[in-house]
């Protein structure tokens, strides 16, 4: 058997396939399609301290090989999660992680602190890259000063595994990767969505109520792979690759570029069972090519060219 397990800090993952925040609900919604325990991990939908209504409808539009969304972090807040969702997830033999959001540094910190008391949540993903909120999110993650500040502040109160999710809407992804590493992140994940927009030409108006939204899906994969490659060459902490992964070939592309793990997002909308197919597919590739450990493929193109 080939080895698919890996670690971030002291946290073990059974395989490198994780479902991406905002695209897998609380995980529970996928249970009809896959056994969640097969996954390397689940990152539940973007959470905030207080419940958020999110942005007005329409919130999505299909684009060539992708989609734009402007959900805007609709969620019921941490309290609802603690009461209604957390109890249903604690028994799961996989890493359930929370995507942490705030409009101010204080909110980020308060939420991270509160999550640190949830025993069965071994890691958080600090989202400083949501393009769909007016305050916080991408505004933090595209400015080196505020990015550093929010990571530093959260790191102070959160001692478990801290993953920082980076925005692709920056001139230099290396700069932000380095900041995350410097401030003590255990891993970085990238990319969040690219800021995009679409107009319904027939109706002569913007397709989204918020005009702009976040672009995801295969369309962004070449940009995401490039950024993962750049980031992985810059930092020593693990990089989690995200962006347009539809199958095991896409997943392996990120891994060969330098990703230690990958997240599946938009693909879940088309085939909610796809994470398991990806795990099997990676396994098969390793067997066919005679690799005993998938980690031999991490950054393969750097080692060999």
């Amino acid at each position, binding site marked *: 058997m080939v080895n698919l397990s890996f670690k971030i800090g002291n946290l073990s993952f059974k395989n490198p396939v994780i479902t991406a925040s905002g695209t897998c609900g609380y995980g529970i919604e996928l249970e009809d*399609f896959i056994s969640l325990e097969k996954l390397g991990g689940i990152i539940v939908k973007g959470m905030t301290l207080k419940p958020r209504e999110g942005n007005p409808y329409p*919130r999505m539009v299909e684009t060539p090989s992708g989609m734009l969304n402007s*959900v805007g972090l609709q969620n019921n807040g941490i309290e609802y999660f603690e009461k209604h969702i957390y109890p249903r997830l604690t028994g799961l033999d996989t890493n359930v992680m929370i995507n942490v959001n705030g409009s101010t540094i204080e909110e980020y910190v308060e939420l991270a602190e509160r999550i640190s008391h949830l025993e069965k949540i071994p890691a958080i993903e600090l989202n400083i890259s949501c393009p769909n909120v007016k305050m916080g999110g991408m505004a933090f993650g595209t400015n080196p000063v505020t990015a550093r500040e929010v990571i530093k502040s959260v790191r102070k109160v959160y001692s478990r595994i801290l993953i920082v999710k980076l925005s692709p809407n920056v001139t230099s992804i290396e700069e932000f990767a380095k900041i995350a590493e410097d401030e003590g992140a255990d891993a970085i994940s990238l990319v969040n969505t690219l800021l995009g927009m679409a107009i319904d030409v027939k109706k002569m108006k913007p397709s989204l109520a918020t005009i702009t939204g976040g672009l995801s899906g295969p369309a962004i994969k070449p940009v995401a792979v490039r950024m993962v490659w750049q980031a992985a060459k810059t930092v020593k902490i693990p990089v989690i690759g995200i962006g347009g992964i539809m199958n095991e070939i896409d997943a392996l592309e990120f891994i060969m570029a330098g990703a230690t793990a990958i997240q599946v997002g938009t693909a879940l*909308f088309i*085939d909610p069972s796809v994470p398991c197919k990806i795990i099997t597919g990676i396994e098969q590739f390793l067997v066919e090519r005679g690799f005993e450990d998938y980690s031999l493929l991490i950054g393969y193109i750097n080692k060999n060219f």
Partner: protein
Amino acid sequence: MAKLIRDFKVLNNTKITQDYFILELVSPEKLQNLMPGQFVQVRIDGSRETFLRRPFSVHDLDYDKNSIKILVQIAGKGTEKMSKLLPGEILNIIYPLGRPFSEPNKGENILLVGGGSGVAPLLFLAKHIKQLEINPDILLGFKSQQRIIETEEFEKYGRVFITTDDGSAGREGLVTEHPLLLKGKYDRIYCCGPEAMMKAVVSLAKSRNIFCEVSLEHLMACGIGICLCCIVKTTRGNICTCTEGPVINANELLW
């Protein structure tokens, strides 16, 4: 009911007008139970223009043949492609999805109101209601005589009333101007159609204090409650029309 992803096979593809066709699709196994108002998510493979699945209401079904029918209006790239499907071809489907229309009680007076592709879920509903030994009234609005679809089917299950915008068939005008809606004595109204029509029906039903449910056709990315794109603002806050709808009670809507 567990949601399934299954390769259905096209049994037949029947063109009914320039814009509409009906696909009959056979499940590879025993068909899951489906209720009127529920929908399926169809995967249209292989195009950059049809990346996401497309939702369609169940128009009719046959548990003996393990088949469902969907009535499809050609609205864009995806439905255009679907219109060309040949018998024997495969269509990948996620089902059953969404909350159905609520069950009427025996002896109630029921009115179904539909327009355009909104008639799709109503046929299955009418059939279901008929099985409860109720003969619903069915009010269908179309642009013109040439645009009329499926009325013969509906006649099997209830009294059918037609309006056309231009008066070329049935009563001239909008369904919302029909005496049935304005004065008819009903315990329940079920409605599906263009948003403007549904809004008018909802406001009439509310003012006349009649129980009313509408089936919304909001843009969906996933159809299974994981993307939060398909929301509608209600008295309960934003709810997902794919999991808590598409059928919504008129009183909950903030229209």
